[in-house]
């Protein structure tokens, strides 16, 4: 599965990638662009990435996740380019035999992705002001 896309994230594709009759619990995480109000209403976010490394690093994270829990299936994708408010910038799906494992591993993947993926976001407000957001 490709881990970088310019297109809207399709949750159904993530769920299909981890589906199995042996796994009874599936967790899906979608990170979504918020309207936000800290500095003013957000119009959209432009995600810039070191695309080659993003692909490789996401693969490494998912491989590590499988290593932590071999009975699970994991999938993830990060969107780059312009992402409007209300649309997802990242999606992660984890399927496991039981729900506790699916929830825990999904959270682990999301936290690792936020800590390690080479992605930056430039927030564009309704008034046209733009700034890099580091968080």
């Amino acid at each position: 599965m490709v881990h970088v896309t310019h297109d809207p994230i399709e949750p159904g594709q993530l769920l299909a990638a981890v589906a199995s009759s042996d796994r009874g619990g599936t967790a899906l995480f979608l990170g979504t662009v918020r309207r936000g109000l800290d500095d003013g209403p957000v119009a959209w976010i432009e995600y810039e990435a070191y695309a080659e490394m993003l692909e490789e690093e996401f693969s490494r994270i998912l491989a590590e996740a499988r290593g932590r829990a071999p009975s699970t299936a994991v999938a993830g994708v990060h969107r780059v380019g312009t992402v409007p408010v209300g649309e997802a910038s990242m999606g992660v799906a984890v399927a496991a035999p039981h729900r506790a494992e699916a929830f825990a591993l999904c959270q682990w993947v999301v936290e690792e992705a936020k800590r390690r993926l080479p992605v930056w976001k430039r927030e564009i407000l309704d008034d046209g002001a733009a700034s890099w957001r580091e968080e």
Partner: protein
Amino acid sequence: MSTLTIHCRFFARYAELLGCERVDVPVPNGATVADLVARVRASVPSGDRLPVHLMAAVNRTHVPSGHSLTDGDEVAFLPPLAGG
């Protein structure tokens, strides 16, 4: 002493600060990532606008600042990450 040629890449805010996304920088054999950062800050126009300590990746893998460089390495200077 032989010289290594390092292919530097800059992203997001760092690319804006320097006004470029790529530059090749020579460093002495045995140089580390920290040495490269110091060289870039001293020799690349506006390089001193970069922080002294920053996150870096060598050949698309995160590395610590003490990582030793090899001729032809691609070193990415990574602003604080903000994915997800």
